[in-house]
């Protein structure tokens, strides 16, 4: 409420964060956390066997990982910060306050990781033999360790967002860091990263080793063995993680699998998960037992399946913590649970600093356009309704785009006029009907204003511009001046 509202009304704010974050996770898990130890092992194996073919293959795979992690990985890592700061500055602000020192350490570890991957890649050819080579192998294992530590710190924050545990009463970094979901999620992600990296490496081997070279079979077999070792731990870690997810979140699982219209899809999704795991296992087992090698395209299916599954897992994780963005502390709309009584007493708009003015199409779409002073009053009500929508709803919903309010209202109310008399009851009780929805945060009058604004959506499919496009003005509602008077008086 202290910042102008950034809003994407077609793609949706959630999708922006999801696209960037999921891409980052795929690169981080598949090409950094999981792949660096595998590459270091391959190099070490080559040194032990005095076989330069291992060294050559490891370097080529590292080069691919180096290019992608330092471009797509680094950009999406920064992109996550930009996007979440724009979309939900309140939640990222809270997380920074709680995890300041953890994030600071993570930053140091990340900088070290970047230096290590640069050193590891650039010294590969130079430190090629003797003591220098042994030092280079140690550099590889150090890189692998630092890659894992960055994930280990961030996973704590992700777990905290699902269930802060004792932090709600103790408010210490340690209590937040050791939240109940932390270790199970880490136990799941670590082997998942290793298995993903194995599939990525298996896919890359045929590009770098000739089909007739027996080394191709040997290398594929070794990498398949790495993947096979990791796979059962993915299942065990997944089961542990699944078992600690709070019951209220499990209720959201069916919806999170796709969208509201696909609640029955969960069963199919679980089947697809099981079949994907089996596809990975069967492919790597065939690689181990095969005497001629497995064709390159055979790795494409498990590769795509693992990427798809990981992406979907992230989406589900983001969704099931609803209605909160930080479990039991902050709702998905960025409003703290403990602020609700205050907001319900004084009104949401009393604490809303910025307003995005109504656009001409919104004014044109007004269902009843009174004249004279009545017109001005109707416009003001509509403006308040829009401000409430932008503050309380727009973090998750668009008007007519992805996860659109208009679509949900059409499904519930059909072609009847979406007048406040029809929609008000639902809006005030939607958190009871849909447990993933936060309760409405403002006063009854603001709820009516919101219902008035939502009525427009039946007549107008025009996208609502965020502050980044339409600009914003300082809001001056009557309640705000009362609420902030003591503060302003001191200035």
């Amino acid at each position, binding site marked *: 409420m202290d910042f102008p509202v950034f809003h994407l009304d077609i793609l949706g704010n959630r999708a922006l964060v999801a696209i960037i974050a999921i891409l980052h996770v795929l690169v981080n898990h598949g090409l950094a956390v999981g792949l660096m130890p595998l590459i270091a092992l391959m190099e070490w194996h080559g040194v032990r066997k005095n076989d330069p073919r291992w060294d050559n293959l490891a370097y080529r795979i590292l080069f691919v990982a180096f290019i992608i992690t330092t471009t797509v990985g680094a950009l999406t890592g920064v992109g996550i910060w930009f996007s979440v700061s724009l979309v939900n500055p309140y939640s990222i602000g809270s997380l920074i306050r709680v995890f300041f020192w953890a994030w600071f350490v993570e930053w140091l570890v990340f900088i070290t990781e970047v230096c290590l991957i640069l050193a590891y890649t650039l010294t590969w050819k130079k430190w090629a033999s003797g003591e220098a080579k042994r030092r280079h192998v140690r550099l590889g294992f150090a890189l692998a360790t630092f890659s894992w530590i960055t994930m280990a710190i961030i996973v704590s924050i992700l777990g905290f967002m699902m269930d802060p545990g004792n932090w709600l009463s103790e408010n210490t970094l340690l209590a937040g860091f050791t939240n109940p979901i932390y270790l199970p999620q880490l136990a799941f992600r670590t082997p998942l990263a290793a298995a993903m990296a194995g599939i990525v490496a298996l896919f890359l081997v045929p590009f770098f080793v000739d089909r007739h070279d*027996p080394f191709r079979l040997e290398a594929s077999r070794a990498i398949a063995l790495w993947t096979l070792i990791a796979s059962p731990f993915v299942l065990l870690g997944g089961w542990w993680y699944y078992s600690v997810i709070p019951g209220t979140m499990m209720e959201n699982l069916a919806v999170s699998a796709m969208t509201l219209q696909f609640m029955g899809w969960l069963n199919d999704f679980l089947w697809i998960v099981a079949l994907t795991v089996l596809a990975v296992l069967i492919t790597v087992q065939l690689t181990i*037992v095969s005497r001629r090698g497995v064709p390159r395209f055979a790795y494409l299916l498990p590769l795509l399946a693992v990427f798809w599954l990981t992406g979907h897992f992230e989406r589900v994780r983001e969704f099931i913590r609803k209605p909160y963005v930080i479990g039991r502390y902050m709702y998905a709309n960025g409003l703290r649970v403990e602020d609700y009584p205050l907001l319900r007493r004084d009104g949401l708009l009393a604490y809303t600093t910025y307003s995005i003015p109504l656009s001409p199409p919104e004014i044109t779409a007004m269902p009843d356009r009174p004249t004279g002073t009545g017109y001005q009053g109707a416009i003001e009500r509509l403006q308040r309704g829009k401000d409430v929508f932008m503050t309380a709803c727009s973090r998750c919903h668009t008007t007519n785009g992805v996860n659109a309010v208009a679509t949900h209202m059409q499904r519930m109310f059909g072609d009847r006029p979406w007048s406040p008399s029809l929609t008000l009851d639902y809006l005030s009780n939607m958190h009871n009907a849909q447990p993933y929805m936060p309760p409405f945060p403002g006063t009854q009058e603001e709820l009516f204003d919101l219902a008035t604004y939502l009525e427009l959506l039946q007549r107008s499919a025009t996208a609502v511009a965020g502050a980044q496009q339409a600009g914003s003005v300082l809001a001056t509602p009557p309640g705000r001046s009362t609420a902030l008077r003591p503060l302003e008086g001191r200035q």
Partner: protein
Amino acid sequence: MRPHFLEDDVNWLLRWLYAGPLRLPLLNVLMLVALLTMLGNPKVFAFVGAAAVLPCSVLGFSGAWVESRRQSGKFPLFDRLLIWVPGAVALALCIMALLLLSGTDGQSALFLIATAVFTFEMVMLLWAATAPRDPTLLRPGA
């Protein structure tokens, strides 16, 4: 004059079966699974399947143990893992498939999937049981 066509065909089939390390085990497993599927009783399937898994796993683990002891000291980690891990994973997945099988009604999609997994993993288990005794399985390209 004695006709040779049947004898030739059988010989050809036997030669083909023995030419690949997994052909004979696959044939055996397929015949076992076909028989158990025709019985139509998932519980009997699980019981007989478990009875088939047991000697294979004993054979595999004893082979892996003997090979580990024989090669101790000069046995690289990779080879050590290669003779232990595939068999252990195949055994775990065989047991999982049998557990799934025993809980189905014999007509469901889960039954078909569990049967397919059991078949595949039994072949893998047989490979793992044979591999420690057959160096060409562990080092096909060498």
